[in-house]
């Protein structure tokens, strides 16, 4: 026992931020595991197979499970992964240590917030889904815990900006290194983006749930929610992008094509992530159609950085494939290291992102949105985005990052590869079925259809597609079991290899460098661009929010579950 404690001390002695990163990462993956358990049950529900009666003593209904699924996977897991990656990568790149006291403060805020919110969730006192639209009214502890959890990310903003400031002081006149640039723009975007949610929860929902307010205005709450609700998906996505830009080309055997374009992508996300939220409110009354059209245009603009990413990542992978000896039009694809579970996870994730992005552009297209709003098309779309690319990027990264942080080598590499293939195939089948069921048969999202004879009768024409959901549910369950076995077997083994501890983050080399690039110089004026982002938000939201704040129509809360 004494020997083991000693070796554990050694693993983190020179780099305490490794331990912090590991804790954030593992807490995130525990949330993912618990949240994911409900996934196959929901797939079966959309296949007409109702297993919820068997969960009865522990979980009361479908919607309680769905709330846990959304909160744990889309909020808890994604934020913790962002806090792990977007603090650790710049620390490694700059060779600086984040303020460790505050780093642990952020971890404990996240953990305590999570536990406070978990109690009402597990007691079926907050089955309001992860969008918690009023007047559905949850227990106060749900809003309070969620607020504390989200505020933990504000500490991460400080950690990243403080390291950046320290580096700039020591390197006047130099261009910010790439990963740090990504991290800084990412956290500034989140600072701006999170304000809507913070105002909604702190000023309205917490006082309301404590009985200090009789009611809240549901339209204003939706508007504040979606002010944050759209950029939050870029908050989930960008850690995956940062890893794809700065580690994937190296892992695949090549180099990143262009450093300045990677900066441009993150800058465009800083500018356009936030002022687009009305595309979640196309169906809402109380927001004039011309405002919705303005947000449509801005939403289209935020597709641009992902179009650039598609090219840059594909070109960098082609560079890797040709370096590995691939020839011809498609030979470079076969020459990529498909047997590396990290590379595999990213390749498959980006493949899913192509139809995912196309669906996103459909959703953003105002009128087209009327056909698919609130149908299962929408979960079909975002399971390609966050459920496939973001999650696979995280799983794939865990395959090298957990050994890197702990010094423990990856176990069961074959299972790791199998988990990624199965996850991808399962998600592809499921999202395909959901898109068609939503588009052709208007099957609604967030609905316990398997528990309702009325619903099963109403949607019986989509029975053939429903079968695919059951198949996908089984495949995804197997994929999850394999992945979590590999993750925990790696992290909990007692074997350590010093070479793993000493290994560096696999940062890529770049072909087109930042030095001497006028584009890189232009993007370097981060605070100027932050001001522009702020201005865009004021222009796109100011008049509508002013109108809503000065004409509130509060309604009382209801509990209908």
């Amino acid at each position, binding site marked *: 026992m004494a020997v083991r404690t000693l070796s554990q001390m050694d693993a983190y002695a020179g780099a305490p931020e490794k331990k912090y990163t590991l804790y954030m990462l593992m807490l995130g993956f525990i949330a993912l595991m618990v949240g994911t358990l409900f996934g196959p049950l929901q797939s079966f529900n959309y296949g007409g197979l109702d297993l919820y009666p068997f969960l009865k003593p522990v979980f009361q209904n479908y919607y309680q499970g769905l709330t846990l699924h959304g909160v744990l996977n889309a909020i808890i897991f994604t934020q913790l992964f962002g806090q792990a990656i977007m603090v650790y990568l710049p620390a490694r790149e700059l060779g600086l240590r984040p303020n460790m006291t505050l780093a642990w403060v952020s971890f404990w805020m996240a953990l305590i917030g999570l536990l406070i919110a978990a109690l009402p969730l597990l007691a079926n006192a907050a089955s309001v889904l992860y969008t918690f639209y009023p*007047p*559905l009214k949850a227990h106060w502890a749900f809003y309070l815990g969620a607020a504390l959890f989200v505020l933990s990310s504000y500490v991460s903003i400080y950690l990243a900006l403080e390291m950046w400031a320290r580096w700039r002081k020591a390197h006047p006149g130099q261009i910010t290194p790439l990963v740090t640039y990504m991290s800084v723009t990412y956290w500034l975007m989140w600072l701006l983006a999170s304000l809507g949610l913070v105002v909604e929860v702190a000023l309205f929902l917490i006082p309301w749930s404590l009985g200090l307010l009789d009611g809240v205005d549901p339209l204003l709450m939706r508007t504040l929610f979606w002010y944050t609700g759209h950029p939050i998906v870029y908050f989930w996505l960008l850690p995956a992008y940062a890893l794809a830009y700065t580690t994937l080309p190296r892992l695949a055997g090549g180099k990143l094509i262009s450093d300045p374009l990677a900066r441009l992508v993150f800058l465009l996300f800083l500018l356009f992530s936030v002022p687009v939220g009305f595309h979640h409110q196309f*169906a809402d009354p109380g927001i004039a159609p011309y405002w919705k059209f303005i947000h449509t245009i801005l939403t289209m603009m935020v597709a641009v950085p992902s179009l650039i990413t598609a090219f840059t990542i594909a070109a960098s992978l082609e560079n890797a494939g040709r370096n590995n000896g691939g020839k011809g039009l498609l030979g470079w694809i076969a020459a990529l290291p498909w047997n590396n579970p990290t590379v595999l996870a990213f390749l498959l994730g980006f493949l899913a992102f192509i139809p995912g992005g196309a669906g996103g552009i459909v959703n953003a297209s105002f009128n087209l949105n009327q056909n698919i709003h609130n149908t299962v098309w929408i979960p079909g779309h975002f399971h390609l985005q966050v459920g496939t690319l973001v999650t696979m990027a995280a799983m794939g990264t865990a395959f090298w990052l957990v050994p890197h942080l702990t010094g423990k080598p990856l176990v069961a590499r074959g299972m790791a590869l199998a988990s990624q293939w199965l996850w991808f195939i399962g998600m592809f089948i499921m999202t395909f079925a959901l898109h068609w069921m939503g588009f052709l048969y208007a099957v609604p999202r*967030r609905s316990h259809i398997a528990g309702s004879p009325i619903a099963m009768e109403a949607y019986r024409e989509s029975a053939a597609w429903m079968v695919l959901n059951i198949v996908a549910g089984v495949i995804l369950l197997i994929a999850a079991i394999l992945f979590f076995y590999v993750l925990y077997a790696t992290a909990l083994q007692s074997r350590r290899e010093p070479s793993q501890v000493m290994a560096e983050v696999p940062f890529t080399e770049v072909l087109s460098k930042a030095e001497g690039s006028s584009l890189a110089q232009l993007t370097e004026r981060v605070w100027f661009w932050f001001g522009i982002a702020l201005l865009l938000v004021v222009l796109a939201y100011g008049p509508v929010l002013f109108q809503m704040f000065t004409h509130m129509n509060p309604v009382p809360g209801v509990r209908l579950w």
Partner: protein
Amino acid sequence: MDENVHVIERYERAWIVFGLGMIAVFIVLIGYLMIANRGTIPISAGRVDATQVRSAGDFANPRVEQVGNEYVVYVQAFAFGYLPTEIRVKAGRKVTFNITSPDAQHGFQIERTNINPQVIPGEVVQVSHVFRTPGEYRIICNEYCGIGHANMVSKIIVEP
């Protein structure tokens, strides 16, 4: 490959221009459809006191009203159903729906149409549609509203 980096950058610029061009085309098409399909876009038709919806005003008496050659429908979307329970209209005439909720948020999607507004308590949402083909159309609640959400299905009967 490494020495071709400037060639790659030229292709990338072309790709970005193509992407922007595609987006410009989409925006023009959306703008056109916005004008062409004006009635299906949900708009606000005033506000109400959600606690009074069941007892006073237009929505306490949910109904289909014939106004000249058109229909005006007042719908109460509640947990977990719609009033009036059955809506009958004739094909080829404009139907304007005014919808509100006395409790939680609901959906009001009419299958095989572009009608899909969000029903928010305190707000009256308005959409209109001309049913060309006679038959039965389901109305589906597609906003989670509580334990009976999946049962919340109604219908519109369009007569020839």
